[in-house]
């Protein structure tokens, strides 16, 4: 438990650090720019428009853009946060200065003040409440957006939040979300208080700001726990799982410098040598695309993850023909077929629809849609390529073999969201993995899970039985492939270092 609270403290500091380093830079850039466009008003339109456009880029997309340029980690996160903080600061500096009465400015000039004196003695102090309001907005935005920094291995409270979402662990989500919300509220209140302070008292306080920002920013630079010759990038989900980082530590005794990163960018980061070891999925198409190799799990800590559709028993009664149709796919897709299908969507950028159709035609299962108008079956999927493809296949099979209509709700962000949607009758079925069902959704006694974790059939039977009893949800027949966790590294590096299993990796790390 103390480990977790250390982690929380550490993440909070990282979060503060990210927020304030970027805020400091945003003020350092935004303030002079705001002053500049207040002088050259003709430029104000275009500068504010550009800052406005930058602001509208979705945060995850912006983080994604940064990776090819700045890699992963703190740098791209800080730049992205800086970009979000820029608009309110530039705009408020501009508005604040332009809003000062022309008489006061004229008086300042007529008294014989130089341009710099007018700026520092009159314009900035008078515009300060407005500028501070901008800094306040930027701070709150940054505390929020900084949670996403964990996607690109920059740390922060997002590690808990996204870890919690993938692990179906509400406490973990709250452990990240509550401190993040509190940070936003507290910082906002502090800045609001400063904003309302008497302008006069405030003149001296002003200098505290840059120092404060730098000190808070410095939290981020606190020394990291330990270094090692190789760097691993694990997803937030992997970090918190017994069959993930925890197992690597306890079973293999693996000590490696680890950063937390989103699986969306992990493979590319490994390819670009930002990372050496990543926690991938064994059927992921990017394995092929980025020339990665799987390290053998010689002590067997990763349980099997056989995919099968799970469906509400109520839906099975409602749509009697459905079970047969969904089982058409049972046993049809092996690991290598799935990797190939994933490769086509992830790397060749073919649409999931096309990949699904090609496959169904290839094994003679495709029938054109009957165009029936009975009732609607709702298919869910998680937010990664493989699930999109499976959802498409099921859609085509249902349309081709029954008179039902289909609504797909794809891209549900993580196991918890998907499963909650199923429990709350928002969707009828979605493809789930036996290992996830066991370890994330059922969470049995560790002894129970350990006993059957490595046996495909006993896991399947256990989850089938338990889901039926506990949730009234039925596991249909497995599709065939096993999408388990796997540690991966670049093929070339694996050869160079002669590391091909987790044990040899651990031995290599101990030596270097």
């Amino acid at each position: 438990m103390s480990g977790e609270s250390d982690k929380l403290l550490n993440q909070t500091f990282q979060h503060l650090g990210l927020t304030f380093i970027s805020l400091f830079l945003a003020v350092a850039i935004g303030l002079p720019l705001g002053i500049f466009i207040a002088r050259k008003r003709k430029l104000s339109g275009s500068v504010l428009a550009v800052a406005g456009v930058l602001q509208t880029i979705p945060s995850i997309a912006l983080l994604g853009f940064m990776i090819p340029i700045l890699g992963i980690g703190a740098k791209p996160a800080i730049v992205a946060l800086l970009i979000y903080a820029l608009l309110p600061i530039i705009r408020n500096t501009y508005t604040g200065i332009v809003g000062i009465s022309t008489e006061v400015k004229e008086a300042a000039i007529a008294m014989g003040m130089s341009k710099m004196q007018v700026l520092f003695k009159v314009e900035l102090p008078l515009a300060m409440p407005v500028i501070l309001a901008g800094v306040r907005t930027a701070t709150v935005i940054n505390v929020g957006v900084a949670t996403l920094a964990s996607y690109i291995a920059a740390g922060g409270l997002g590690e808990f939040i996204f870890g919690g979402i993938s692990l179906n662990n509400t406490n973990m989500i709250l452990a990240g979300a509550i401190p993040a919300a509190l940070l936003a509220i507290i910082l906002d209140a502090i800045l609001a208080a400063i904003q309302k302070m008497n302008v006069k008292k405030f003149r001296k306080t002003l200098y505290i700001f840059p120092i404060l920002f730098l000190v808070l920013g410095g939290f981020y630079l606190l020394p990291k726990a330990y270094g090692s010759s190789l760097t691993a990038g694990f997803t937030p989900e992997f970090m918190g799982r017994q069959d993930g980082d925890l197992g690597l530590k306890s079973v293999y005794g693996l000590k490696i410098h680890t950063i937390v990163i989103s699986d969306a960018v992990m493979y590319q980061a490994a390819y670009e040598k930002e990372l050496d070891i990543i926690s991938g999925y064994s059927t992921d198409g990017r394995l092929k695309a980025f020339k990665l190799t799987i390290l053998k799990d010689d002590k067997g800590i990763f349980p099997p993850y056989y995919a099968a559709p799970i469906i509400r028993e109520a839906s099975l009664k409602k749509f009697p023909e459905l079970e047969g149709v969904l089982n058409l796919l049972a046993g049809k897709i092996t690991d290598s077929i799935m990797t190939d299908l994933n490769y086509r969507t992830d790397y060749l950028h073919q649409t999931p629809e096309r990949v699904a159709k090609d496959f169904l035609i290839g094994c003679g299962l495709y029938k054109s849609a009957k165009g029936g108008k009975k009732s609607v079956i709702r298919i869910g999927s998680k937010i990664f390529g493989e699930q999109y493809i499976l959802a498409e296949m099921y859609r085509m099979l249902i349309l081709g073999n029954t008179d039902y209509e289909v609504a797909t709700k794809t891209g549900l962000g993580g196991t918890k969201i998907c499963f909650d949607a199923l429990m709350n009758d928002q969707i009828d079925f979605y493809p789930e993995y036996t290992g996830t069902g066991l370890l994330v959704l059922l969470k049995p006694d560790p002894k129970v899970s350990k006993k059957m974790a490595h046996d495909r059939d006993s896991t399947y039977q256990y989850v089938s039985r338990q889901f039926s009893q506990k949730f009234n949800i039925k596991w249909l027949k497995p599709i065939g492939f096993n999408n388990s966790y796997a540690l991966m590294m670049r093929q070339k590096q694996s050869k160079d270092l002669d590391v091909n299993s987790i044990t040899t990796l651990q031995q290599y790390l101990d030596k270097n």
Partner: protein
Amino acid sequence: MIKLEKVSKSFHNIPAVKAVSFEVKEGENLILLGTSGCGKTTTLKMINRLIAPDHGTITVNGKDIEQENPELLRRGIGYVMQNNGLFPHYTVGENIAIVPQLLKWDRKKTLDRTKALMAKLHLSDEYINLFPHELSGGQQQRVGLARALVADPAVLLMDEPFGALDNVTRASIRKEFKALEELKRKTIVMVTHDIQEAFELADRICLMDKGEIIQIGTPKSLLYQPASDFVVKFMESERRSLEFRVTTLNDLWHHLPVKNSANATVVNSDLSVWDALNCFRSVGQEIAFSTDEIQEQKSLNINDLTVAFNHYHMQYLHE
């Protein structure tokens, strides 16, 4: 002291000031008078380089202002504005001390001068730590005046200094202004659109219209030797009261009956007819004055005054 030669200025190709030339002597109070948009404020602001002229030269104290550092020039010229232009984030004391600070006076000298000036301008000591918004409009305007006067500049530029005040406050501040010792030695250029104000305060008036000077001269000469119909028309509606303002009791001496009553209030012979009329509180009341040359006193009531003024006026017009 101040000299403008063929000074012109256009804004966006629309001429605002057209080849204006005039001279202000040391200690003189010149008033730029005219309707809105006549170019008077532009002319004023060119003197301390708030606006740069397109053509012509301006010299202050014999030096071409173009050749001077604008900041140093402005520190030597007091400037009073219509809406006072006080810094809202500075206290009264700090506002007044702006120029001394720029001139790097020591703290004590600044404070002594600030306090002395505030006393002269009837601003109580306790205002020194208040912020401008805590004062009345009249008090703010006095602070604005103090700020302009603090470094004792030889030249003072005033842009509608009483323009934002209500009539009552305005009249009383104007009176104080006239009486202020501090201002007597100064060369003042002041802008106003208020004819009464111009006639009350000016040594000379420069009447402007559409960027040009129509007539420049003493109030009396504008009234009695108008250069054009424009000048006559400009003053027409207020002619009678202006005549009251430019005529002093001294001027009327010969038209007043010889009379001396014991209970008359003694007044100064420099008093304008306008001010003398204001002295009468009731119809029966009498005032008395003596001229400088003859040690003799004449007393008069309101009737005597109007009769004498009419005689004087008829004679003046026929001269």
